[in-house]
């Protein structure tokens, strides 16, 4: 019980820091790096919100703006895509920064990744709410909402990575580009591994069949 209480207290503190970081990323990330403001309890709340907004996007967006077929919505696959995407970015950035010999710690990279999801998530919630009360005339306004969210997220990510890795601006950009390359390499490896496992499975399956049919 006390554990849960402690978690909530930590999350509340993290939320305070996070909100401050949204409006003053320099101050917030500086505190994260040098003043031990690095509790990650709130990060999991952001991840949960991000997951929910991805579901809400397909389920409760207003009819005019919702192009998803309700018969085809699958929550597990949304979970896999949203959380898997975050995990991929986190792992790729961690790997790249260890190659670049930066000062970023695992915890800090995770924090920056999660923090940068918050503006997108919040603006997407606003977007979803507004879609239920608007028609096609407001499409430019809706697009603007989403673009603002994305841009804000990207700025937070950029500043966060700048402070985490203590690289120059160009170095951070390079770090992000390499991260994208890293994601592609990881995806390729996953595909390769999947094919391999499948072939091994087929191999053993054939052997089993041979044995089974041979009396």
């Amino acid at each position, binding site marked *: 019980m006390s554990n849960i209480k402690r978690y909530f207290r930590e999350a509340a503190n993290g939320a305070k820091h996070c909100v401050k970081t949204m409006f003053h990323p320099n101050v917030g990330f500086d505190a994260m790096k040098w003043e031990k403001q690095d509790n990650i309890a709130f990060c999991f709340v952001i991840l949960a919100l991000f997951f929910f907004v991805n579901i809400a996007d397909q389920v409760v967006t207003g*009819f*005019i703006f919702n*192009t998803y*077929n309700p*018969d085809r919505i699958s929550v597990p696959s949304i979970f896999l895509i949203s959380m898997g995407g975050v995990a991929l970015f986190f792992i790729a950035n961690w790997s790249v920064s260890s190659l670049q010999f930066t000062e970023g710690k695992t915890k800090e990279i995770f924090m920056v990744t999660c923090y940068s999801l918050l503006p997108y998530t919040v603006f997407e919630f606003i977007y979803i709410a507004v879609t239920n*009360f608007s*028609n*096609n*005339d407001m499409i430019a306004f809706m697009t603007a909402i989403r673009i603002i969210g994305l841009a804000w997220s990207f700025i937070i990510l950029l500043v966060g990575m700048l402070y985490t890795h203590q690289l120059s601006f160009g170095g951070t950009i390079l770090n992000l580009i390499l991260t994208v390359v890293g994601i592609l390499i990881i995806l390729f490896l996953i595909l390769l591994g999947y094919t391999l496992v499948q072939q091994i499975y087929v191999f053993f399956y054939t052997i089993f069949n041979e044995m089974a049919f041979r009396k």
Partner: protein
Amino acid sequence: MKLKKILVMMVTMLLCMSVSVFASSEVPYQTYTLDKWGNATPSPNGYVPQRSIGGAQLGCKDFSGAQDLFYSETLKLVLVTDTGNSRIVVLNDNFEFQYELTSFTNDKNEEITLNKPEGAYLLDDGTLYICDTGNQRIISCTLDGKLNSVLSTPESELLDENFVYRPSKLVVDEDNRMYIISKGTYQGLIYLDTNGEFIRYFGANKVEMTFRRRMLKIWKSILPEKAAASIQSFNPIEYGNLYMSNDGYVFATAAGSEDGSSLMTKLNPLGIDVLPFKIKGQSLFSDVSIDKNGIITCLDTTYGLIFQYDGNGKLMFSFGGIGSQVGLFQKAVSLIEVNNNLYVLDSEKNTITEFTLTQFGEMVKDAIVLYDEGKYEESIKPWEKVSSHNANYLLSYIGLGKAYYQLKDYDTAMYYFKLANDRADYSDAFREASLIAIRASFTTVALILIALAIVIIVLSIVVKKYNKKHGTKGLEMIFKKKRGGK
């Protein structure tokens, strides 16, 4: 007990089977429409095959590789271009044999015979144009076989040096100008004036730039000249068949397509495609026909299917298939619509198949005619009838939605647009509905806001006076400052 159960089950199964046998013995195919997500869903039949007409039924020689059907509405005559037998068979609109044309005599009493003709066109004044493909010429004559003129290969500087004239299909407009498809010519239709003089190419098609072709283009620019020359050149799509609508538009189908992005075009008098929608698919259309209500019927030769669209490009029915039963085709080449029936010519079966409208098809057509004329209110009843027969029929919901929109019943309109997944129209109905809601509640909301403003102003005056009297600041009279706090 167990035995009884099994018996009941067996009887039920037998009943089910007999039902399915009945259903399938009637028509050899399943009619489809598209549901709101664009998937094919079974639909009641709009057309059923009635009979198959061959040479024997007509009382003449059997067809041999016949290529074209033509129907003249004013003269009530059907022309069958029987390519293999080098003749034009003339039928009346009940498909009874009248006579056939094989040769003509000119002024000098010389006989001119046809050689593998592939297309014919009949003007309302009785002038007959025949694409005499084998002889590379166009013959203009009267219906009783009197020759008007013979138009051989047109001459012009605009035509290529190694241009080969192989006219296969043609249409003629009101001013007797001809639009001709010459096989192997991809620059467009050949546009001839009344005397057979070449005017220009008409309605040149676009080159489809698919991903593969873009890559090939890059290779072409990199490779040395000799190697680059061996890469195929990209030509515009060649036309396959023509149809002239009553209002003077030339409908043309594509004879071959790389990505199936545009299987049919509607050319205006300038030769520009003005079809308001795109018909896509990995397939080829061999013919097209437009009825007086703007309903477009296309004949798919690859899959032997007939597609019927309304004037806005919404699929009404698709039916047919490859096979040998009546109603299925081997190589469907031409299609006409006579008195609401469809007639499809098959050049391998050498028969004409007659399709008649079913009750359901008539219902749909009635509703669509009213709907396309803009008589939305009158179309409510027919559309409701259609949707009671087929709850998956998307067009009925769009029609009902538009009807209720016209009647200013926006909530009902929104309900039907939602069923039809028609987002643009739903948005319009939603806008109107919300405008009405805003107008209705405006006075109440405005009054509440004014009252609130007055209350706030009065309260602020009261607070100010209190503060002056007691020397406090802001709202300290309510929220007292904590003493001894942090």
